């Protein structure tokens, strides 16, 4: 890498630290932040109210019925968890692959993962008939000696999401320890010193610390990468395991994983361009990063498109009337708007990213990513409902429309995400300063070497 943005002098290192660790300590744009935060907190309030009403009244306040047992909650669940995948991919996989450009993106991408998985992971619990019994999915030694049913994709889904959340949290936290220490050292007030000091776990930057840290961080990364694959594979099996036409397809696991990465990279790209602009981080999140994000999004997008094709082909090739019926419902039936909406929003603007000029243009990248995010939401919506509303017996076909409370919970979950994310950028170093410095140093060495 020869890009000039990486600081290579001691002064440059200090500048990086100041820039990154200084944001939480001396926050710019306080008013703007507060406006955003109040909006997000308002939506969070909607979330809490929606969940409260849900717990009091029962899941009947939603529009679900028989046959559409699974409603917006499940499609949003897949969507949120999918978004979460990019953070881990960027952090862990690229760390293992020694792609240093990730260093400007990994911290907030990981945070994004955590928050998205939180938003997603709450959904299946909210959607339960008896949410207060959700822990029965966990294999704990109960007095009745009843274990979870290990054949069920849901059991593994529960394990996968919980593991993923835990590993992501640890990975993110371990990765941030050196920067917590930097922030602690720069902190002026006693409260901030204690707060960041506790988070830094006594980090002094000793060589032994670095050695241990590097070991554990790489180890966590090695654990996290397969989880990315397992989580969304599990989620896809939630559908593919059943005998229901439109779901029971072997392409589902890769299709879901790639779709998840696709939507995740799109959201990372949106956050990167937004944060870059808001906090003037152009020298840290460079056009080079945008370019790489664009490439990843494009690659995942094209692989997701293959998933669409494979799904289509499987249905056609099977020749089963119900599969064809579901296909028809998607392409030309009542879910055509969602299907074609997904196809158009996911893949048409995406083609712009073949050109470097568009990839490195933050506005274009943001808009394409937004389109992908919406497109992937439509895809999840379409996949869940076009299958359920007409399965086998004509007699049980019935339409489904999400109720107010489902929409409010969805809006609220966006509020939950934004609230957490805004607190993150307000309180914690959002870019990994030490890794940027390290990368810069290594590049310098390489250049001199």
């Amino acid at each position, binding site marked *: 890498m020869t890009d000039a943005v990486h600081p290579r002098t001691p002064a440059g290192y200090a500048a990086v630290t100041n820039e990154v660790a200084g944001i939480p300590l001396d926050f710019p744009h306080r008013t703007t932040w507060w406006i955003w935060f109040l909006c997000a907190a308002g939506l969070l309030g909607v979330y809490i109210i929606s969940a409260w009403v849900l717990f009091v*009244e*029962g*899941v*009947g306040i939603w*529009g*679900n*019925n*028989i*046959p*559409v*047992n*699974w409603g917006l909650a499940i499609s949003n669940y897949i969507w949120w968890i999918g978004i979460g995948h990019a953070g881990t991919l960027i952090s862990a996989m690229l760390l293992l692959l020694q792609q240093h450009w990730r260093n400007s993106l990994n911290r907030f991408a990981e945070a994004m993962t955590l928050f998205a998985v939180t938003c997603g992971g709450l959904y*299946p619990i909210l*959607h*339960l*008939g*008896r*949410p207060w*019994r*959700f822990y*029965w*999915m966990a294999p704990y030694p109960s007095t009745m000696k*009843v*274990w*979870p*049913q290990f*054949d*069920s*994709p*849901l*059991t593994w*889904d*529960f394990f996968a999401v919980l593991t993923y959340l835990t590993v992501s949290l640890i990975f993110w936290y371990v990765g941030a320890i050196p920067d917590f220490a930097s922030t602690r050292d720069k902190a002026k007030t006693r409260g901030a010193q204690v707060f960041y000091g506790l988070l830094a776990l006594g980090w002094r930057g000793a060589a032994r610390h670095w050695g241990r840290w590097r070991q554990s961080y790489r180890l966590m990364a090695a654990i996290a990468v397969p989880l990315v694959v397992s989580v969304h594979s599990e989620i896809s099996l*939630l559908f593919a*395991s*059943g*005998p*229901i036409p439109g779901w029971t397809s072997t392409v589902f696991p890769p299709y879901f994983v790639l779709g998840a990465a696709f939507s995740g990279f799109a959201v990372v790209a949106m956050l990167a361009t937004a944060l870059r602009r808001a906090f003037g981080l152009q020298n840290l999140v460079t056009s080079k990063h945008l370019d790489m994000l664009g490439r990843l999004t494009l690659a995942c997008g094209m692989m997701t498109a293959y998933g669409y094709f494979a799904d289509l082909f499987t249905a056609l090739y099977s020749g*089963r*009337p119900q599969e064809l019926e579901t296909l028809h419902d998607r392409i030309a039936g009542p879910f055509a708007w969602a299907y074609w909406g997904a196809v158009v929003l996911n893949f048409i603007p995406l083609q712009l990213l073949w050109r470097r000029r568009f990839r490195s243009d933050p506005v274009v990248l943001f808009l394409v990513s937004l389109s992908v995010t919406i497109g992937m939401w439509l895809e999840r919506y379409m996949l869940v409902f076009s299958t*359920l509303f007409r*399965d*086998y*017996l*004509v*007699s*049980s*076909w*019935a*339409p*489904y429309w999400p109720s107010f409370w489902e929409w409010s919970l969805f809006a609220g979950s966006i509020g939950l995400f934004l609230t957490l994310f805004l607190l993150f950028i307000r309180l914690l170093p959002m870019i990994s300063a030490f890794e940027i410095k390290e990368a810069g140093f290594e590049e310098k060495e390489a250049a001199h070497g």
Partner: protein
Amino acid sequence: MRDRALHKGAVRSSAEALAAAKLAGRTGRRFWRALEELTDAPAFRRALEAEFPNAFAGVTEAGRREVLKAMGASLAFAGLAGCTAAPHPDALPYVTQPGDLVLGTPKTYATAVVFGGYAQPVLGLTHEGRPTKLEGLPEHPASQGATDAFTQAALLGLYDPDRSKAPRFMGRPTDWSGFDAAMVENAERLDATRGEGLRLLTGAVSSPTFARQLAELMQRWPLARWHVFEPVNQDLRLEATRLAFGRPLEIQPRFEACRAIVSFDDDFLGPGAWQTRNARAWSQARRAFQGGRGEARLMVAEPAPSLAGAMAAERLIASADEVEIMVQALAGRLGAGPAPQLRLTPRQAQWVEAAAQALQRNPGAGLVLAGAHCDPAVQALALQLNERIGAIGKTLGFCAPILLQPPDGTRSFEALAADLAAGRVDTLAILEANPVYAAPADLDFPAAMQKARLRIHAGLHFDETAAACHWHAPLEHALETWDDARAVDGRTSLIQPLVRPFYAVRARSVFLQNLQGRLGGDPRAILLATWADRLGGEADPRWRETLARGFVDEPAPPQTPGAAGAPAVRLRRRGGGITVLIRPDPTIWDGRFGDNPWLQELPKPFNKLTWDNAVLVAPALAAQLDLKNGDHVRLSAGGRAIEGPAWLTPGLERRTVVVHLGYGRSLPGQLADGRGYDAYPLRTSAAPWRVEGAAAAKTGGKTELASTQLYTALQGFDFVRTAPVAAAQPGPPHPPPPSFYPPRLSGSPQWGMAIDTDTCIGCNACVTACDAENNVPMTGKSQVANGREMHWLRIDAYYEGSPDDPAFFNQPVPCMHCEQAPCEMGCPVNASVHTHDGLNMQVYNRCIGTRTCSSFCPYKVRHFNWFDYTLHDPPELRAARNPEVTVRSRGIMEKCTYCVQRIEKARIQADVENRPIRDGEVVTACQQACPTEAIVFGDVSDPESRVSKLKAQQRNYSLLEEVNTRPRTTYLARIDDGATHD
């Protein structure tokens, strides 16, 4: 139930209302003086007495000793009456049982419920004194153990929270003493005039006790008169026999002997008091045909789809007038009458020819039926036809009318209306009839009725008629009273109570005594008096045997009519406009079941509508009028009009619309209130069933109707199948497709079910029986509209072919109990599991409600408690529940269990006796209720069991075989004996 705005508590009490009226507008010091005045006001005292009778029952004068005595006695009695609702001590259990109640051991009593005057013989099951289930009385030939949906739901009628619980005067609750006083006073007045001006109006009634009491009453008051009002009656049928044979006779068809049935718009398999008997008999003939013994040809010409029409080998859609013409054509063809020059379409002529040949092929085993709402002359012609083909005495018998016939015969109610209008009625006593709601519109009965000086109503409900009367006396439900009634075959059932009355209600026989000024009365004594000369006294073994058996085993003596004559039939070609057919609702009937949630939420045949009636419109007419389902259509004829939501009905004649009676009630606070539209205003005494020349117009209004099945076109799928008659023979075993999963079920018994779609008529008896047996919650209209009905067993209705002339199919769908069940794989918490004997079980208390099982279920037979549907049920409804089945709470999945509680009961008994469970020992609720024995349950590991033998037939198939779930519930294909038969 979630969305019912019912049972909101009592109407504001009259004492409160009176006090409020007195206190209105008073303030300050005057208020206190007013309260003193108030407590002394006689009206207030009376109201207070009515409301708190005990407070005035001499307690105020009681001394200390009396108070202590009363206290002691109350405590003692409180202990005695630990279970408040005990069965009547004199009711005799069906089977010999220990004299004492054994907790947990239910008792059965043979008794009957009454529907349209006819007894429906039942076995009532009581748990700790609570009746919880009705089954058909196995020994009774009219039931043979089966029931219809109405009889199943009669149980809920007993517990109905909307039942009238106390007498009322001028609409206000009062007590019986006031009523008694008024009756004594009125009886004195009537004594003076020898009953002049006393009119007794009842619903259809067959009770010998009523006849005896009526005779007594007429003896005392010879000038009194008795009238009958039954909105859905057989009057035209009696008129037809009178035309044909010179006297009214009740027809007794013997479907079991029929090999060819030609029905002209007669839905003999449809709902009605005779459904159970007819369906059982018809299925016997059909089963003989399946076994290769002759044919069982059913040909139906009808304007609107009916249950019989759906089972027909050849169904012809013809308008009501065309049907009548075709009767004449058939008569002409078979030489039973004049052969006028009739213009038939080629299709009709072909059908008539095929019908004639079928009847000629089966001499002495044919039967021609004409609907009870057809022109009596046409029905008489059909009787003549039966004589011609030698049916009379073989497939068609006659008896004297089973229902008691009032003096004016079929004109009885019109005579009463005329007398009322002329002011000739002094006292009008209405028993178990609701003419204010249901009277023909042209009689203007509600207004005429106001001319009677004293109006008394007695019935189960405070209904429209009760509200228009001075006095309302609440009556006992059939399950808590002593009475008698005759079943459709003429055998008299003795009705004995399963439980003491819940409320301060009186038996009908007691009310009839009270009406004569005789206070008190014991319904059992009155019943005994009727039967004293036949069965001896209460100590007589004959009485005890008959009571325990439930009926007097003497069918109606057959009548041999002379040669049938038939008057000339007026040829009536309809002019322009639309023909409106007026029919009783398939689940609510004439309105009497409007407050029964089991029947309100029971999906109606073909359209699967619940909680509403609709104007059934042919798709072609709907296109012409630009109607979609739910669009309001206004039907007007002869200056009268009704408006209701349309429902597109395939197989309906294109210029005919069907309206159903029984809805559009105004009963504030009751379940039936405000549901559907009222079709009675279109009905006149001259044309009760059919209005010609009506106009139909779209109005722009819209009602969302709640149907449990939105798509009924089969769309080329093979969910229902047909097979040639040879397929009813056993065939080579049919191995299931290969599976990755190992077969994991072995041992005996292995439970399974076979459902014969060749005999299933879609009557809904099984669905209601399942609701009753398994405590299935009713959810209300809005939940049904949202796809959340809870029926464990549903009857899928499909049609195949053009909507203008389709073939109809019924398919009961319980849980398939798949051997390779996708639901079990999906559940994360082991709530959906397989038992060693092959049941797919739902463990309610383990379920957390992920709903994966239902998402994975290809049959969608699982139902989810989206809300707590049972938590807010009033205590009365809780008492109706089966204690052997868990009541499910919010957030869990439930489904058909193959009535596991019955299996376990049989298993325990077999274990006690150290033997295997016998074939036929476990009978599921649906199987037990089924009038056609289309559902058979048993051990599939035993090749000799009934169910195994059925499954061995070549026509046995699995629903969605390609999914390879290996269902334990399989279907027997319908046998196609259509036009190809030679």
